[in-house]
């Protein structure tokens, strides 16, 4: 079977469960596929061939002895290189962590997948520390992952390798992480199903944090059924993660095929003119198909403008990310790539009152959005507005990253899935977002499954071209800044312990001081002094 790498998780699981496919053969096929395409795809940072082969032999022996663990037993997967695995280094795609020592602990979700029998193939490519400023500068230790549908194009970030791997079949499923869309954007760009579960649904323990209050763990898969299988294995309370929720985990495959008859699906059509016509048409087509299957479509609006959600997410993300990497930034920022360094410089400038204003607005947005979610069973709305941008048109890359409705659900914590809704005329994947009520991933998956089953898109597979075109570098010419503002930026930097800045860094800081101040003041203020931040100190400590 030479096309094993194109199997879905569910198909491979059925074959393995029936002893018609050996995990050893499957892992070998995946390693062959990696060997064949990953030199130009760059989905992996580290391939764990020996570890995977050994695990496959163990799985095979266990299954042959009657110890089949379930649908993930023997299924090869990859993880973004911000998940820790005991005994292995985590690089986070950063030059700062190239010499990192082996980690002492395995991320809970990885451990759960391995306990379910899944086989780790390796660590996948990522933007540095799983974040950035939206641009690709080609200055990281690993070359940027390429989009399997068109190697000239970007995969979407930050879970770049996860998107590339599942689309190209170098992993049957992959774990990404999502702070403002980092699972859903690569899923959208690479034609996958990518789920950001409810905040608290899946553990974040032993993952490199990017932004404590917005980070989510989750998977990118080829099919919706695969999501159901993988989420069922990942989800659940973890005492090691203070944000983990105790809500019970249903069997996500139960009811997956129940259809949408009678479900009320809200459709959001008023997110502005920025959505590509192809994506917009595909959402209308999806809505029509769901309606034809018996769903009740209701046009709704988010309770706030998209820019409000984005502003809140941006301030929180800048500030928390900076706190996480502050020491690296102050002492070793020359080792950071430009995308991370720019984000850190922004975080260096954010005022506490603006961060608090964002947290206060976040509570309001979460409540108001939840009130909307309670009036529907699920929501369909744009995810990424554009198709995967070309690395040969670098100015389109940040637009792909920023023009989305993904961060809405990082701010509110609701589950949201990026669903492949077909392909544009150029063969690039289209996408929509399906969002649901808190802890109701089951309905999100059920809606997505109904759509997937009614469309032919899963039959089309990416076949990476033999050669990847050279990228074109983005323009990084420093902006002209008046001398008095340079002096102000330099004083600010010195006051907070940042010295020996290069002239270009001072110029950037001067711009960011203005930009973060404007972004902070753009956060709506609450009418009551009692409207408190989304998270305040609570005991007992968790």
């Amino acid at each position, binding site marked *: 079977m030479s096309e094993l790498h194109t199997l879905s998780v569910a198909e491979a699981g059925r074959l393995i469960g029936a002893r018609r496919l050996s995990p050893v053969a499957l892992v070998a096929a995946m390693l062959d596929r990696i060997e064949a395409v990953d030199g130009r795809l760059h989905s992996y940072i580290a391939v764990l061939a020996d570890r995977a082969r050994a695990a496959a032999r163990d799985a095979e022996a266990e299954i042959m002895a009657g110890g089949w663990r379930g649908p993930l037993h023997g299924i090869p997967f990859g993880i973004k290189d911000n998940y820790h695995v005991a005994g292995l280094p985590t690089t986070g795609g950063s030059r700062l962590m190239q010499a990192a020592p082996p980690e002492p602990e395995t991320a809970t979700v990885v451990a759960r997948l391995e306990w379910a029998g899944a086989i780790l193939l390796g660590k996948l490519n990522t933007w540095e520390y799983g974040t950035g400023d939206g641009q690709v500068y080609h200055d990281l230790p690993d070359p940027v992952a390429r989009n399997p549908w068109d190697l000239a194009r970007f995969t979407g970030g930050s879970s770049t390798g996860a998107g590339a791997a599942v689309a190209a079949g170098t992993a049957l499923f992959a774990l990404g992480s999502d702070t403002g869309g980092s699972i859903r954007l690569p899923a959208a760009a690479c034609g996958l199903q990518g789920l950001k579960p409810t905040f608290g649904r899946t553990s974040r323990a032993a993952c490199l944090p990017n932004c404590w209050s917005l980070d989510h763990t989750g998977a990118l898969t080829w099919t919706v059924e695969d999501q159901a299988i993988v989420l069922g294995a990942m989800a659940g309370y973890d005492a090691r993660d203070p944000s983990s929720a105790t809500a019970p985990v249903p069997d996500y495959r139960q009811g997956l095929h129940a259809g949408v008859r009678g479900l009320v699906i809200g459709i959001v059509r008023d997110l502005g003119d920025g959505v590509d016509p192809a994506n917009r048409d595909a959402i209308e087509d999806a809505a029509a198909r769901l309606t034809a299957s018996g769903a009740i479509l209701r046009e709704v609006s988010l309770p706030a403008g998209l820019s409000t959600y984005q502003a809140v997410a941006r301030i929180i993300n800048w500030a928390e990310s*900076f*706190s996480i990497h502050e020491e690296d930034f102050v002492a070793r920022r020359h080792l950071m790539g430009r995308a991370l360094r720019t984000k850190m410089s922004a975080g260096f400038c*954010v005022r*506490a009152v603006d961060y*608090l*204003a964002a947290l206060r607005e976040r509570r309001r947005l979460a409540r108001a959005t939840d009130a909307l979610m309670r009036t529907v069973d699920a929501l369909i709305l744009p995810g990424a507005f554009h198709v995967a941008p070309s690395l040969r048109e670098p100015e389109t890359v940040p637009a792909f990253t920023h023009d989305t409705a993904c961060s809405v659900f990082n701010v509110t914590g609701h589950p949201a899935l990026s669903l492949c809704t077909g392909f544009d005329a150029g063969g690039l994947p289209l996408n929509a977002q399906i969002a649901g009520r808190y802890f109701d991933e089951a309905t999100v998956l059920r809606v997505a499954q109904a759509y997937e089953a009614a469309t032919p898109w899963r039959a089309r597979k990416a076949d990476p071209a033999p050669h990847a075109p050279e990228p074109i570098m983005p323009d990084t010419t420093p902006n002209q800044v008046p001398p008095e503002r340079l002096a102000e930026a330099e004083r600010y930097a010195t006051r*907070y312990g940042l010295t020996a800045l290069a002239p270009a860094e001072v110029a950037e800081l001067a711009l960011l001081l203005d930009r973060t101040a404007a972004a902070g003041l753009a956060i709506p203020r609450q009418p009551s002094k009692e409207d408190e931040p989304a998270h305040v100190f609570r*005991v007992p*400590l968790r």
Partner: protein
Amino acid sequence: MTDETLWRLTVAEASRRIGLGALSPVDLVEAFLARIAAVDARMPSYVHVDAEGARAAARIAAAELAAGRRRGPLHGLPFAVKDNYDVAGLPTIVNSRLRLGHVATRDATLVARLKAAGAICLGKLSTWEYGTGNGGEYGDTVFPTTRNPWDLTRFAGGSSTGVGAAIAAGTAMFALGSDTTGSVRLPAAACGVVGVKATPGRVSRHGLLPNCWSLDIPGPFTWTVEDAAIVLGAIAGYDPADPVTEDVAVPDYPRHLAGGVAGLRIAAVTDSGPGFPPPDDAMAAALRAGLDTLRSLGATIVATRLPVPAEDCFALSRFIGPPESASIHEAEYRTDAALMGTALRDKMHGGTLQRAADYIAAQRRRRAVAEGIDGLLSGFDALVTFGTFRVAPRLDRQDEMVAFTVETAMTPFNLSGHPSLVQCTGFTPAGLPLSWQVVGHRFDEATILRVAAAYEAATPWRENRAPVR
């Protein structure tokens, strides 16, 4: 005819008499109104006395009691609240020119609970502007500075300035204040009364003007520990209107008081770490004597140290309180900073400039402090340490008032979320109250009340009343 001594009654004793039909709420309220009329102008502890409202409530309580419908131990007992609690129909000025003319349209949850328990609100007690400040008294806010009933030239402690004074002077039988970095325990210490900062999540903050969402906690002031147990039991418990409150069962606090300390393991911190100047000799001697008392009652005392020095904890709180305050009062600061008093305005200036990075760093460090104190407490039933390091300073010594407010061992337990109370441990030769702090496991206010009650019963300090008359 008003009984001149009724204001001296404890909550427990007044409750007992009312239960027996031997005391009328009407007489009790009149006694307190008379006491206020007699002495309060010299302090003053009140910013607003609701005499008519209290008299009307007393008549209703008397009628209910006469009809045999007793609501519970607080029925018919008068109380007062710091002027950052909303009481429907009364102004909530919070000592700020920014709120002149304000009248509350609702009761704070704790006020509503006390009213439902039959207690009678006498009025609003003085506070620093917006319940915050740096220890300095600048004389530039709405209401006059409260004086200490033990010595009218001295400071009553802040920010619940009128609350400690009211209990010490007997202008209220019990009262509610609020604590962000000591604002219940500082006035309790200065005025020789009991002040309880419960576990965050134990008592609702709903209807209080916020000062710092992540540190604020309301708390009762009483003359005795038993009274604190009765009042805490009446106000504690889950409130859906306060997202921080926990749905944790509230024990019958008074029933736990009689347990004594025999067999309890109590940690003692007599050195609060480097940084702050050492406590006054009298305060240190009282702490040592108090520990001897507990030992003689059968407790095991083990000397230990704070995981993070008290001064470092205070420094951390300076990166949490000011930015949250600046967020809370941001709109007013932008448009009306000139109307703010010096203490509040200075805090707003600083809080507005602080970086998110430093706020987050302080909140991260806070978790380490909390876990460190959890570690300290493991293996112990309670912890005894200093509250304030000094007795109430003179009102004309600005630097001493700031030192009194800042240099304490209180902030660690605001950061960590452990319940703590302050009680009187005697008096200086000049008659100024000494005090200590008893700290417990989270949601275990019962044990700290039990320790404090055992100490109180073994010492004569509750017989000494403030000389104001």
